[in-house]
């Protein structure tokens, strides 16, 4: 597993150094974004849906303690055991204790960003429990021994030829085979055995309904269902922000989730887990891990509304060209860049700058999180905390000094136009970070002000 902090520009530079791959990655994600647009446009009420979803989330979060207790009460009444974890480690320990009590050696897991956030897999593996990720994309990255690079499309950065190699090594598929159908079929056969042998199943939670105590899990592959129906233990792990008040609210969220994520009108399976099967156990672990404190941060608490659809990454020009791993946080893209600094500002200080602030993320967010405003607000926090890197700090100071005086501004403009006539080496040298991948436009012969002084009387 990679370390959980990074300097985004450095890792992004490594990714973009392979131009063909960057283009391929960019196109793959833009394709998903276009499918999302088509799905959104198919509903005249799309914007009303987004407004309603945002309000439901704001309501739930502003009354979260009551809904958590209501959920607990109703879930317990259905025979579900509820656990509370203040930290990722406590979450891992709870899951481990349940598994240990039942002497579980092998557990199947469906997609859960929370368990990634808590680093559950290495925790369990260190204690002798084998974890098998069963979402195909997650299985691919697990076998590659790397974290997912996208929250909905975990292996979006991997080419089919590489998957072919990987499956040849781990599942004995034909050498050199890269047909997606063949590779998917091979994984199906391999994982079907593992589902049948599993002693416990772990899932994430898309929505937890307070009024019924049910948890809803959405998948296309059916892995969450097979992973919970076959073994006698189901452990569902959720961040405490997953609570919604009523079942009818699911109508709003399920209409938005898949359309925003992949452009599908709904996922294949929308499973409502209402309690344990006969003779089985069902556990729900409710995890805080910094979330409750985030509720008090005026500029940032709405980031807890996120339903993890991934639309903001699919549309982000930076994400598409730098890849999920360049963010160095469990959740990449715009939403990851506003969540990560809550955990550790110093470690993730480069992430709020991994954005053009174009606002596309905010436009596609199904729960209307003001992502680009939050990214800008985090930049202010980085500056306030004195964590801006020295080069950027100096440049900002200099710009501010120049812009504060009309004389200095005019002089600076003149110097710049002159400097641009110098040979390239003077402008495009290692000191000019901006100019590494970009060329300046040709300099105009005069400034607008000079032109205006000369021409203002002509047409009057």
């Amino acid at each position, binding site marked *: 597993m990679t370390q959980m902090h990074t300097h985004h520009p450095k890792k992004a530079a490594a990714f973009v150094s392979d131009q063909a791959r960057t283009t391929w990655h960019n196109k793959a994600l833009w394709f998903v974004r276009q499918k999302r647009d088509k799905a959104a446009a198919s509903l005249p009420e799309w914007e009303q849906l987004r407004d309603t979803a945002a309000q439901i989330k704001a309501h739930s*979060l502003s009354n979260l303690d009551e809904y958590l207790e209501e959920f607990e009460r109703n879930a317990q009444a259905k025979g579900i055991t509820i656990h509370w974890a203040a930290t990722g480690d406590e979450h891992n320990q709870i899951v481990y204790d349940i598994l240990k009590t039942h002497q579980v050696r092998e557990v199947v897991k469906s997609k859960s960003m929370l368990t990634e956030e808590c680093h559950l897999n290495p925790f369990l593996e260190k204690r002798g429990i084998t974890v098998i990720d069963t979402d195909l994309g997650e299985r691919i990255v697990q076998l590659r021994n790397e974290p997912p690079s996208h929250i909905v499309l975990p292996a979006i950065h991997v080419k089919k030829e590489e998957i072919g190699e990987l499956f040849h090594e781990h599942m004995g598929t034909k050498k050199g085979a890269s047909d997606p159908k063949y590779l998917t079929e091979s994984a199906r056969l391999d994982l079907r055995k593992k589902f049948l042998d599993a002693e416990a199943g772990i899932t994430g939670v898309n929505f937890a309904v307070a009024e019924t105590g049910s948890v809803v899990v959405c998948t296309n592959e*059916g892995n969450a269902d097979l992973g919970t129906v076959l073994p006698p233990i189901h452990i569902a792990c959720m961040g405490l922000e997953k609570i919604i008040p009523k079942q*009818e609210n699911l109508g*709003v969220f399920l209409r938005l989730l898949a359309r925003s994520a992949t452009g599908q009108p709904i996922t*294949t*399976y929308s499973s409502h887990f209402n*309690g344990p099967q006969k003779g089985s156990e069902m556990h729900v672990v409710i995890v805080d891990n910094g979330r409750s404190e*985030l509720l008090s941060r005026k500029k940032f608490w709405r980031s807890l509304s996120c339903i993890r659809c991934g639309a903001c990454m699919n549309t982000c020009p930076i994400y598409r060209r730098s890849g999920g791993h360049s963010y160095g946080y469990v959740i990449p893209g715009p939403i990851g860049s506003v969540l990560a600094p809550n955990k550790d500002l110093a470690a993730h200080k480069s992430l709020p700058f991994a954005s053009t602030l174009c606002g596309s993320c905010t436009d596609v967010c199904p729960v209307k999180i003001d992502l680009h405003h939050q990214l800008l607000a985090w930049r202010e926090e980085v500056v306030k905390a004195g964590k801006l890197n020295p080069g950027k700090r100096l440049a900002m100071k200099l710009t501010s000094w120049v812009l504060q005086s009309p004389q200095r501004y005019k002089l600076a403009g003149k110097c710049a136009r002159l400097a641009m006539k110098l040979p390239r080496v003077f402008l495009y040298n290692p000191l000019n970070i901006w100019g590494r991948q970009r060329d300046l436009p040709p300099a105009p012969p005069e400034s607008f002000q000079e032109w205006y002084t000369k021409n203002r009387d002509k047409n009057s």
Partner: protein
Amino acid sequence: MSRESILASVRAHKPASIDLPSAPTFGIRYEDISTQFKQAVESVGGICTEINAVEEIKPLIDQHYADAKTIFHTIGDELPIPSLSAREFSTPHDGDKLDLLITRGTLGVAENGAIWVEEKQLPQRSLFFLTQHLVLVVKASTLLHNLHEAYASLGLDHTAQPWAGFIAGPSKTADVEQCLVIGAHGSRSLLVLLET
């Protein structure tokens, strides 16, 4: 146990209460709900065929699933296809031998092709996911326009069972280079028979 400290922290940090919006009344409605439903089922990878009577099911099964050897169905004696006995499925794992499951859906949703099914209609709910192929029979009279209507119609009774849910199309994945492959872990195909 961190329960108390987490709840205390939520209480201390939560923002001022914001109202819960009323239930949406803006859900899309379609002029021809059956045609929309059929298109939606096909858009999620399924096949949808209209039938006028249960007698029409057998020929369709023969046509689509000629190779199916182990079949379980809940349609009853009206359907002259031999079904395995429910007693053969005493554990969830027993569903792994199943080639074809034919059962009914409670209701269908026109906007997305989703069909509501419940644990109690099968000897094991695992059959929904372990079967190689799935056929769902849906009455046209149960079709609803959108998910808001669907949840309003379902109510909360289903929560007395361990599981219930929507199934929309066969299982699928696009995790290998965004290439859509039908037949991931669950059923490899879904045939929806819309009973008019």
